[in-house]
């Protein structure tokens, strides 16, 4: 009980004072996760749409694997990316291990299947509504991808948020690939993990509260914005 109230006070204090260490940690967390979401969406959205619109042998297997990949364990992804980026690995020469770039890479691997699988379903539903009309207007399924992604933008934002939620909350992958180096690769989740194991539960809890506040705040703002736009479009 004591720890929790102490943690609340501490978190308030840190947020109000714009504690520079906290700002750096929060900034890095957001930078890494938002970059990963951007890249993951740039790959995942068109890929999901492609799966929804095209028919090819092995497509069903592809979808099964994709759905399974939504639940990839972050530590395993972290380990694999670690091996790829380690000095003897195939991308070792790039020197990305223990850097934010490496962390982004690991999160992209985690997020892309989530965005792709969720957008596949959304685009498939939209395509069943639009298919005849778009084909009648002269579009081929491949050309329809951009149209469907744009027209499904409100529903697809859910897929992107799900990806962001996964990225900002996970600790296993960025811990392994980033190494939790103070001032370089320390994020909110890795810091919480560290402070907990060091026994500074109040600080860990305070960071946790900040993390929750930011996550909820971003999602609330984005969905309010999205809902307003959706209502305007009558979509």
């Amino acid at each position, binding site marked *: 009980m004591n720890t929790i109230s102490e943690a609340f006070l501490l978190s308030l204090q840190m947020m109000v004072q714009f504690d520079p260490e906290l700002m750096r940690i929060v900034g890095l967390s957001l930078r890494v996760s938002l970059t990963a979401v951007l890249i993951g969406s740039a790959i995942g959205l068109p890929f999901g749409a492609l799966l929804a619109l095209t028919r090819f042998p092995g497509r069903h297997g592809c979808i099964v694997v994709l759905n399974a990949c939504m639940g990839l364990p972050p530590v395993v992804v972290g380990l694999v990316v670690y091996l790829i980026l380690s000095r003897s690995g195939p991308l070792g020469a790039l020197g990305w291990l223990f850097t934010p770039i490496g962390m982004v890479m690991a999160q992209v691997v985690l997020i892309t299947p989530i965005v792709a699988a969720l957008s596949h379903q959304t685009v498939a539903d939209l395509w069943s*509504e*639009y298919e*005849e*009309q778009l*084909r*009648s*207007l*002269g*579009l081929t399924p491949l*050309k329809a991808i951009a*149209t469907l992604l744009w*027209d499904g*933008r*409100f529903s697809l934002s859910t897929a992107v948020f799900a990806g962001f939620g996964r990225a900002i909350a996970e600790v296993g992958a960025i811990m392994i690939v980033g190494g939790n180096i103070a001032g370089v690769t320390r994020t909110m989740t890795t810091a919480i993990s560290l402070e907990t194991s060091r026994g500074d539960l109040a600080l860990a809890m305070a960071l946790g509260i900040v993390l929750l506040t930011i996550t909820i705040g971003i999602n609330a703002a984005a969905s309010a914005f999205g809902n307003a736009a959706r209502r*305007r*479009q*009558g*979509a």
Partner: protein
Amino acid sequence: MSMQMAPLHARPVLLPLQLQDVGYSINGQALVSHITLSFEAGAPTLVLGPNGAGKSLLLRLCHGLIQPTQGQVIWQGTAAQNPQSLRFDQAMVFQKPVLLRRSVLANIEFPLKLRGLDATARRSKAMAVLERVGLAALAERPARVLSGGEQQRLALARAWALEPQILFLDEPSAALDPGATRQVEGIIASIAATGTKIVMTTHDLGQARRLAGDVIFLHRGGVTERTPASEFFNMPRSDAARAFLQGDLLW
């Protein structure tokens, strides 16, 4: 490859459209069969028949949305050699208008962009056609918030902007009130007057009388007759059509 929107009479023609012994079956069950018809430029052709007769399916087979399982759909005009013309010189408006989640104007500009028109040409063509269907004031409105009648007028305007040589209409006013229906009919008549061949289905016999040049009657997946409109409504040739006009044909 961009396409000029030349006036209808100056373009290579796609019509006539010939259906030769066309049939479509699913799992061995024939939904339509042995349909041999031809569509030429001229007054609107109305496709009538009870529910489930295959009217919508026939339109989709003609338009190329569905491939027949038997027989052939052949475009006999010289333009048919050009796949671009086959894709772009025909259009269809569906019973429930499918509008993109964009503005009214953007809905019309969308297929024009596909046809290679530049931004200025798209804008002026779209505004001109919106003017003609009475929606110019709503150009910036999101299409999905329009009323049912306005949505169907927009769908017709979008098809009109494409200046198709043939336009398929699948019960375009089935869900509309009498006022909206009259507006839709006015638009259809105007499109027909610009030289576009209209092929449409309807359940509204009054509407069929007002618009039809000739009538194709479908019953249980087959054509029972094709008759000039004046003759059809006074003296249909087939028993099925006679029963239908008297309200006695139930299926």
